[in-house]
């Protein structure tokens, strides 16, 4: 990591993080905004999800996608990306630019300044006609977002995960598709998008992280200047944490013409908020199904040969975890039992103490190597948008290392199976069971 980051507040709840370093051949600027995902409001969710794409594909200065792409190509193929992802029951909107450091330009161009200027242009001076978003640009973006939803139906692992979340978090905002619905996307108007853009600038807690050898003052002053005229009233989105399953375990089974069954098991973690026993919970889930030393890998995959992949992944900002695996449809019950057995062993403390140290070393290794990539550094700080004090990977590592076995066991007691989703193969009866 760069030795010193410098954090300044450029507007209310909008921090600028400068991470100066000469280590890399490219610089990165990442802008993150956090917006609420109100339950049932598919229009708002769709508008938020669509906004980063709309902002990044064109702007007032480069009003077509091709002009924008040509500008990026002239900046030595600078990468510009934008998207939205759920962060608990909120939507994290990101726009990101990465480009070659000036010292590698073939003819001494100012690449970093050009990229900074472009990023601020597209955030603050979008492609408006008569004060509203360009209709053609919006229609293109609506098609692209709709096709992302359609495309997911061909990705069975992602499809099964989405179905599990919809079933398990039915009645909660987290159960909604964070891209909205096809109908809601279709209904979006230039006025809706203008409102979503203004809401983002005015109400979203924000953070801008820049990893570069130079050029911080320019970005910071331009952001200050741009946001000086905006009357910011940021609102911190809130997430409903459901600490335990609401009733009996919910089971949903669907069938398609697939070769392999997809099993997704959703667990409530007993967390009351994002910090509640989090580090101990992370370790508990890591030894359950987070690494090659975990129970799911060593036993469900390696010993029982039930699957090629089987892992447990926490959704910290919602207080849940998902175990996902691709298994033979006829071995669904065997796989479920084996997975639950592994969880039970952890909850009962039936594992070697060294496993906790293995997990700590694994996590520490990843944290230390984060310093080797400008993208990971930028993302590390940008994802701390909800935290009042930014924490370095080294400080986080020290906290992980301080977690005790007792704390891990205590956290593990909170893990409760809530919902099981299984996508079965329609041809299962014809499969040969090995």
């Amino acid at each position: 990591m760069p030795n010193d980051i410098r954090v300044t507040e450029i507007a209310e709840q909008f921090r600028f993080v400068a991470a100066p370093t000469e280590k890399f051949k490219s610089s990165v600027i990442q802008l993150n905004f956090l917006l609420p995902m109100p339950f049932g409001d598919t229009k708002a969710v769709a508008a938020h999800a669509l906004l980063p794409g709309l902002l990044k594909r064109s702007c007032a200065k480069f009003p077509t996608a091709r002009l924008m792409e040509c500008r990026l190509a002239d900046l030595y193929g600078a990468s510009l990306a934008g998207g939205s992802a759920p962060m608990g029951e909120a939507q994290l909107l990101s726009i990101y630019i990465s480009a070659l450091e000036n010292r590698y330009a073939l003819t001494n161009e100012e690449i970093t300044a050009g990229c900074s200027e472009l990023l601020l242009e597209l955030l603050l001076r979008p492609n408006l006609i008569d004060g509203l978003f360009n209709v053609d640009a919006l229609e293109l973006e609506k098609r692209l977002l709709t096709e992302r939803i359609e495309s997911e139906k061909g990705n069975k692992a992602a499809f099964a995960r989405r179905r599990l979340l919809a079933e398990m978090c039915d009645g909660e905002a987290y159960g909604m598709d964070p891209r909205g619905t096809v109908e809601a996307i279709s209904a979006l108007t230039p006025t809706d998008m203008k409102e979503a853009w203004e809401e983002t600038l005015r109400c979203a807690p924000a953070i801008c992280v820049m990893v570069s050898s130079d050029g911080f003052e320019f970005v910071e002053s331009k952001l200050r200047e741009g946001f000086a005229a905006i009357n910011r009233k940021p609102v911190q989105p809130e997430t409903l944490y459901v600490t335990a399953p609401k009733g009996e375990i919910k089971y949903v089974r669907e069938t398609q013409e697939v070769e392999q069954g997809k099993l997704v098991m959703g667990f409530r973690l007993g967390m009351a908020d994002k910090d509640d026993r989090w580090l101990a919970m992370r370790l508990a889930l890591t030894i359950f199904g987070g690494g090659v030393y975990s129970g799911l890998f060593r036993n469900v995959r390696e010993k029982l040969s039930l699957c090629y992949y089987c892992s447990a992944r926490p959704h910290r900002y919602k207080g849940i975890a998902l175990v996902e695996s691709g298994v033979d449809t006829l071995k669904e019950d065997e796989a479920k039992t084996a997975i639950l057995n592994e969880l039970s062993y952890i909850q009962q403390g039936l594992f070697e103490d060294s496993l906790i140290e293995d997990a700590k070393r694994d996590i520490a290794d990843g944290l230390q190597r984060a310093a080797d990539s400008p993208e990971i550094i930028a993302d590390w700080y940008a994802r701390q948008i909800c935290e009042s004090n930014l924490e370095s990977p080294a400080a986080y590592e020290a906290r992980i290392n301080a977690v005790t076995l007792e704390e891990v066991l205590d956290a593990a007691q909170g893990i409760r199976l809530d919902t099981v989703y299984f996508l079965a193969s329609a041809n299962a009866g014809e499969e040969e069971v090995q």
Partner: protein
Amino acid sequence: MSETIREIIRDEKLGEEYFRMKHPSGLEILVFPMPDKVGTYALFTTNYGSIDTAIVKPDGTSYEIPEGTAHFLEHKMFEMEDGSDAFELFTKTGANCNAWTSLDYTSYMFAGAGHTKENLESLLEYVTHPYFSEKTVQKEQGIIGQEIRMRLDQPGSTVFWNLMSALYKKHPVGIEIAGTEESIFRITAEILYDCVENFYTLHNMALVVTGNADPDEVLAVCNAKLEVKPGTSAKRCDWEDTDAPTDSVIRVQKPMELPLFELGFKEAFEGSAPTYRDMLILELIMDAVAGECSPLYESLMNDGLVNSIYTEAEWGNGYAVAIYGAESKQPEVAASRICAEIERVKAQGLSPETFERSRRRFYAMEVRRFNEDDAVASALTSCFINGHGLFDRINVLRSLTLEDIVPVLQGCMRPGFSVLSIAEPLLAAES
């Protein structure tokens, strides 16, 4: 023990250098120190991939091995004779380890912060001391069987393999890397040992270390761990497969909603493999034809025909394919527009502006590669497999002119040598 041959290869403009060493064991060692990095990344690679479907003996005779053997062997390498596995070795240091099999080669990796000596020792130890039994082979058949089924459910994977197998009827490049559930059940411990003996000789392998790495330390570990034995690199089959494909369109129905396609052109080349230079120029031409700055990309997007386009050149021993891929509700229309644009560019040439944009973009991608220890390691591995230097691509790009690309442009992406591979939703009656 004879001396290790060592040379330093520098690029003054980038300010980067790497060490190429030929170890007495026959192993090629490539070390790219990145002093600012915390982590070390290593790839131990054998020049043996899924296209090696036969073992060629020194007398020239050969015998076939089941499809998917290289990949199966890669999985089995992790098991040790004492019942433990290689993952446990790396768990002790916190390093991440993995392996993969491609068409041309098989690589074993670790990435870790610190503990470089121990991690390197572990890597060399487990890959050079395989242990297989019929029991452990059977155990893996279940795991890999599920991996094969997982890929059968991925439309993108099916589209690619359908394309390659339609373009190449004789060359095994169209055979899926993991093989089939049927073929992997024919693999035995004996076949695996034969493959090790033939392909995992150090004369057929390279060790690449990047990031926080010292060439002397790497060499010292190699000296301590590796046995010096006479040998040569493995003989590989030669395939003569230059015929035009017989099918121009191949379709598959899947439970999906948005169709996707790959349009591939079988490329001509001289000798046993194309040159890296011609393939780099081909990639650049493809970017100029259908990249995000191109008029074609803009028109296909505006007409609702694609939501993005990717291009790639897939090439190696005996094969070369130029691929355009996209999701599209009208794959045939999108593909015919790409074909028409290729012909227009061939007839009219690229404009200087278009060429320069693509050249800069490719140049920047090459420079940025040197940010990442894993990207440099992959590039060095590719250098070992394909026989060129790490800075060769960037040097070509620095001086490439519009005139230089004309011979490749005129000879590439020939009409009659293309296949359109489509995955589309199941017919309503079936779904």
